[in-house]
Structures are given as structure tokens and as C-alpha cells.
């Protein structure tokens, strides 16, 4: 899976939680979940669970704390996927 594909899949996972359509249209690596997409901070835990289910990975507490924007989330997904291989 290349980075573009992962980004697209993450975009689909995040979609139900967003509160800013415009920012979502411009979903890039630099997008922040809370400041750009206006996602309710409580929903970040739901996004993490959805990411776990989708990519069949386990995200530890330390990684979870970092998953507040697209860039760090992509990095964590890639690291976890690499470990699986």
C-alpha cells in the first residue's frame, strides 16, 4: 500500500466525524483533525478504533496521543503495518 492509498483510506474513515466540509475537500497530509476538520475531540477515540479495525493493527497508548493530525496518523499506520509484514 502506498502513501496515497493510505491517505485515501484514512479520509474515508474520518469522513463521518468531520464538521467542516470545506477543509475535508482539501484533505491533505497537513490537515489537523480538530483545528481544520472541527472534529469533536471525544470522537478521536472512535477514529482510532476505526483505524485499528480497518488496517487490522493495534495502536498503543503512546501512539494514540500523537494521532491528532493526518501526518502523524499516517506515520503511525505505516509503522504498525511495517511491523506486521
Amino acid at each position: 500500500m502506498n502513501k496515497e492509498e493510505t491517505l485515501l483510506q484514512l479520509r474515508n474513515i474520518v469522513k463521518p466525524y468531520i464538521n467542516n466540509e470545506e477543509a475535508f475537500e482539501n484533505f491533505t497530509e497537513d490537515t489537523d483533525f480538530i483545528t481544520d476538520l472541527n472534529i469533536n475531540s471525544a470522537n478521536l477515540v472512535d477514529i482510532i478504533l476505526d483505524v485499528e479495525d480497518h488496517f487490522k493493527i493495534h495502536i498503543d497508548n503512546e501512539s494514540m496521543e500523537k494521532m491528532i493530525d493526518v501526518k502523524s496518523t499516517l506515520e503511525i499506520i505505516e509503522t504498525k503495518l511495517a511491523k506486521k509484514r
Partner: protein
Amino acid sequence: MSRRVVITGLGVVAPNGVGLDAFTHAIKNGISGIRKDPDLERLQFSCQISGKPEISEELSLNYFTELELRNFNSTGILYGVIAGMDAWKDADLPILNSEEPDWDSGTIFGTGTSGIDKFRESIYKIDELQTRRLGSTAVAQTMNSGVSAYLGGKLGLGNQVSTNSSACTTGAESILMAYERIKSGQANRMLAGSTSDSGPYIWGGFDALRVCTFKHNESPEQGSRPMSTSASGFVPGSGAGAFVLEDLETALARGVRIYAEVLGGNVNSGGQRGLGTMTAPNPIAVQKCIKDAIAHAGIHADDIDTINGHLTATTKDSLEIENWSEALGRRGIDFPYINSLKSMVGHCLSAAGSVESVAAVLQLHQGFIFPNINCEDLNPEIESIIDVLRIPRKLIEKELNIIAKASFGFGDVNGCLILKKYTV
């Protein structure tokens, strides 16, 4: 001058009708909402029938976002939010998207438990060491104040937002608490009401207590039989009822329809002393509650046209009639009309007082007394106290002025409301 409190909006989610139109049609025509319950049958309950409102996914989406319905598993919050938002709309109130909450409006929306199915789901996850996978809404769905919290957010309420809980008195109590809040000038408008979860995990304890009927598993619509000789226990039910209570001046200024005036009422407890226990009412307290409600409302016992009773369809029904008769000093043909909505919807537990009060307010506003079903074989003990003509078995079209509504609950708690047709 002291403030007057009126009802300007109604909402209802009942086993025999969701929404005011369906519910009004059902109660006028004696339509039962009691059905065979496959869950209770599978789980080998003694009582395998129940009263559950039917809510489609489509209807839910009018009140909740798709996101809110993800992993949502709380029937009580579902019913309460539908009834509450319906009442708000019925009172012609807008849902503002302003930054500032509505400081003058609040809610007292009661319940016995919250999200009991969500709670069960969570407990299983925790025991499987999956606490981290509970999701973000396990707390909001299972905290007792979940229903008032959801409503407060949807309506932008900025006054008191709270949930009361007093077993089967909850609904009547919520109306009185909201009334007091407005009466004392602390709010102009309060959404009152109550809700109850559905299903085996809320009803199991009652089945174990042997207070539910097991004789009508094959004849569900005949199962709930208040005041009948063959009453053999209550039928578990669920749902929600809601009311917009408003300061009269505010209501008049808005030019909105006024359903009824809340004249007053009373809540008390028998203290589980005398004949009162955790599960049985102290008759002295019940009578005192009714008398104090009448005094508080500033009316006379003779002014009451009709009573909406608690009357659950257990052997205690005749005791309730006797308590009313003693408290009012009225017997035989001199007794007011009396009916029990439970004959059609079962016992909606923490929602009973509010669902039944919606029926009472509709009666006042439209001028009718709904029929009692399933009491063709009237209990002779009841017949010895009050005249059979006072227990309508058919719809009566009649102008009414004052209704007394009472609810009694576990913990030996009582509540009685006095409602009046609104006149200048």
C-alpha cells in the same frame, strides 16, 4: 402577582402510538400497544408480552445524526429525545443555532436507568479486557442524565438541565419540578418529561418479583387489565412523554396554543412506615399526597372531573380506588370519572407518569375521557366503592375542567398533579 404555569407543547412515544396524532387516535379508540415479545420468550420470562414503541431507523434520523446513531444502543434516550424535540416543535419553539444558549429555558427529564443495553454491551467488553474499545459515547449513553444531556445539546438549553428519578413517580415528579422552577421565577420555560428503556434487562427484575402477568402470553392485547377481577399483574412497557411548561406571560406574548394550566400538585413519601414498604404504598401517605395536591392547587375535591390513575393491574388497584375515595371524600356516583392508560400501553415504569399525563392533557384540551379496556369484569371491591358509570368502558366526549393525575412508585413515593383547562 404569582406566576401561572401553562403547558404549550406535547410529545409522546408510546407503545400504542408514536407522535400526538397516532397516540390520540389510539387512546380514543382503546387500541392496545401490547404485543408478544420474542426476546422475553427466548429468555424464558414468565411474562412474555410487553409494550414497546415502534421506531424506524428513518424516524430516528429526523432526530439524530448518522454519527450519533453509530454504536447507539439506548432506547430510553431514543424515546426521550423524540418526545422532547416533538414537544419543543409542538410549542412552536425554534431550535436556534446561535452561539449563546437559551438562558431562560431548561429541562427536567427523568428516567429510571439509562442505556441499559449499552451498559450490558460495555460490561461484556470490559470483562473481555477491551475497555479501550468502548468508544466515545458509552458514558453519555449510560449516565442517568444522558437523556437530559442529549436534549439540552440539541435544543441549546441554558437553564437547569437535569434528570430526576423516583421510580414510577418520575414522570409526574418531573412536571412538578419544572413547574416549581418556573413558578419561582428561575426559568421562563422548562421541558419536562420522562423516559424508560425497553427490553429484558430493565424488565427482568419485575418478572423475578412475580408482579407481571404470566396469564396472557397468547393473548397480549388482553394482558393489561387494570380494575378487572381477572387482573393478574402488570405488563411491562416503555416509552416517553414530554411537555413544554411555560410562564403564562411568556406563552401569551408568543401567542401560542395553551393546552392546559398546571395548577399545582404534591410529591411525598410514606417513609416505608406503617403499611408502606419498598414495594407497597403507605395508604396514609397516598391520601395525604392527593389532599395536599388539591390544597396546593387551591381547588376543592369536588372540582375534580376526572382522575387519571396509577392503576397498574395488580391486586393493589382496589386499594388505590379506596385511597382516592377517602382522600376526596367522594364515593359511588359522586366519585369522578377514572381511567388507566395502562390498559392500553402497560406499565411504562419511569415513563408511566409522563406518557399518562400526555393522555390527561389531551383529554382536557380536546374534551374527552378515553375508555378503560379489559375491565369488562370489574373488580367487585372497586364496584363497592365507586359506581360502574364512573369507569368508562367506551369513549366519552365531554368538556372537562380539572383532572387529577397520580403516580406511585417503589420506595413508597407518590406524586399527584392537578391540571386545569386554561381559561383567562
